[in-house]
């Protein structure tokens, strides 16, 4: 292991990587992640939130490796006998997983999820591309040489196509779909890393949970259909519970913070304007979206966008009125918010308030429609049976706390800074009007569940 490199990391201590992985890390497409902030403009609320997708990506690779190594150590017999893995396959999958985790976010747009709404529409479909689609394309088109041409690959013959297929969830990866849970699942390395990392940089403890305990209790079990899946041993119930609660708290206190949310809106508008301005070669109606990830040329054009470029253009007076809003910190102000999980009556109230405020309303954020942050909240727990077998149960079967967590998705009304007092005055006569806090409504309704 003398030829390993290591980098100091604020969450995991040291993160090690091989010369082969270093070759990929040093690629400009990966280095671009140094110029994409993990949480966009969250620093407007939590000033410490200046970390980037670069360190998160290293952290996900590291966390996934720890998870993988613990699972293999605990379940080698099951993996070999029931699922047909062998020693070489296990070693090779470890390398593949590390590359996939390292590169899973390489296709993020500037300001991370804030740019997601500007991705192109898939041909023949009504859905749009996601950052994962750009990650897949970047791996295929830009990183083929860095991944495939290294002496260390003589032992593995790993291809960029395979790494891309793993990130994409292409069924072609076969039995390795099991390991995809480590990248995108209910206890994946992505969330395992971002909760701790975001908490660290922001300076909150909401995202803390016992990663070490979780690691030593991670295992593989069969669900009631016989499908193998990543699970947590019953002795790790409280560690799993801690992870779910940490996510809930981070969603509630950080990711869905009303000011953070409005900056996502503003920067989305800015990037849209910058794209329109830069796409003079396209017909007018087709401008304002990122190019689709369907060719090397388009991926390169997409990857030229990063936070620095956007900030430079804003500094140069580009980006329209929302750029000015950001530069002057004159963001829209939230004057009305529902409880975290709005009911139909709450939405009716939002619309009534919106009607009363009329032209003052600049934006209504329907948080429950945000697909970038999904708070699915269950983890399979592996319970040993007296007959020597096991059964998987959802964590919510054991934890009343988890069972009673509701999805987070407040709806909020925003007005211009200068209209805030007038809006408050206009709402003064309405019942149940509150700003930013949901406590009163929650109490009046006796809670959600």
């Amino acid at each position, binding site marked *: 292991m003398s030829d390993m490199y290591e980098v100091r990391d604020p969450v995991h201590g040291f993160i090690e990587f091989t010369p082969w992985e270093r070759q990929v890390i040093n690629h400009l497409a990966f280095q671009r992640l140094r110029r994409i902030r993990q949480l966009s403009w969250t620093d407007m609320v939590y000033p410490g939130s200046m970390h980037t997708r670069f360190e998160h990506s290293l952290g996900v690779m590291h966390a996934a490796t720890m998870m993988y190594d613990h699972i293999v150590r605990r379940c080698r017999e099951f993996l070999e006998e029931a*699922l047909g893995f062998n020693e070489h396959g296990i070693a090779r999958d470890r390398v593949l997983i590390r590359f996939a985790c390292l590169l899973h976010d390489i296709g993020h747009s500037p300001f991370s999820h804030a740019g997601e709404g500007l991705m192109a529409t898939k041909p023949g*479909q009504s859905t749009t591309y*996601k950052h994962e689609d750009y990650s897949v394309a970047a791996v295929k088109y830009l990183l083929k040489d860095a991944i495939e041409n290294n002496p260390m690959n003589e032992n593995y013959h790993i291809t960029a196509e395979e790494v891309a297929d793993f990130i994409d969830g292409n069924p*072609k990866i076969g039995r390795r*779909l099991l390991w995809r849970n480590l990248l995108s699942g209910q206890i994946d390395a992505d969330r395992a890393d971002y909760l701790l990392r975001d908490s660290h940089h922001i300076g909150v403890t909401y995202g803390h949970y016992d990663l070490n305990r979780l690691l030593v209790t991670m295992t593989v079990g069969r669900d009631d259909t016989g499908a193998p899946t990543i699970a947590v041993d019953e002795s790790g119930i409280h560690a799993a519970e801690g992870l779910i609660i940490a996510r809930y708290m981070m969603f509630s206190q950080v990711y869905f913070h009303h000011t953070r949310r409005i900056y996502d809106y503003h920067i989305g508008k800015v990037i849209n304007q910058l794209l329109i301005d830069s796409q003079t070669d396209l017909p007018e109606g087709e401008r304002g979206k990122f190019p689709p990830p369907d060719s090397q040329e388009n991926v390169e054009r997409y990857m030229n966008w990063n936070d620095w470029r956007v900030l430079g253009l804003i500094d140069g007076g580009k980006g329209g009125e929302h750029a000015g809003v950001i530069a002057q910190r004159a963001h829209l102000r939230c004057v009305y918010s529902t409880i975290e999980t709005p009911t139909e009556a709450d939405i009716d109230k939002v619309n009534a308030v919106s009607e009363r405020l009329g032209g003052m309303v600049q934006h209504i954020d329907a948080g429950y429609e945000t697909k970038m942050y999904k708070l699915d*909240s269950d983890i399979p727990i592996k319970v040993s049976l007296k007959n020597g077998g096991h059964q998987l149960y959802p964590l919510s079967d054991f934890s009343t706390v988890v069972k009673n967590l*509701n999805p987070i998705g407040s709806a909020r009304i925003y007005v211009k800074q200068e209209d805030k007092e007038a809006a408050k005055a206009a709402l003064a006569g309405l019942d149940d009007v509150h700003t930013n806090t949901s406590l009163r409504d929650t109490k009046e309704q006796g809670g959600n*569940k």
Partner: protein
Amino acid sequence: MRISLPWNRLGIIAEIASRFHDNDLRLGKTALQKMVYMLQEVSGVNVGYEFSLYTYGPFDSQLLQDLDFVETLKGVSVETVSEGYGGVNITVADETDDLRERSELLTNPRIRETLDRIVTDFGQCSAKELELRSTILFIVHDARRRGEPLQEDQTVSLVHEIKPYFDGATIATAFDELETKGYIQPAV
């Protein structure tokens, strides 16, 4: 400026719960994932989900979040089942009909016809049978979408690799059943 709840997605969950209840069938979270996947895939109508394939079949975490939402709105009741392997039964609740009526998607004849078909053809299936059939469908459709269509034997082989606890003959039988019932069009 006005907003509304995502009635289309929420109403679909209520509708499936209602149909299973009317037919005295149990609807677990696994079955709900597979039924919504089949509905979207077979009808060709975008219900609002983007499924990925896992070892346990097609899955979209958005659907779990929506289920929690529907439960909060009393559009379904999610009851814990104590017998057997446990799990849950998603069934009707006070506002089920209200949610169904609010979903414009449910007035789409293709959606209604597809729901009739899949509840008839798969409502009685065990979770395991449903998982296998939805996985076959996913692999066939995904490969065609990628422009890399698979022959039946290739599909069977890939499903077996992902799910080694199903033998080749069982997978082939399920494939043929899906083809016979028109869920898989013969490869051109």
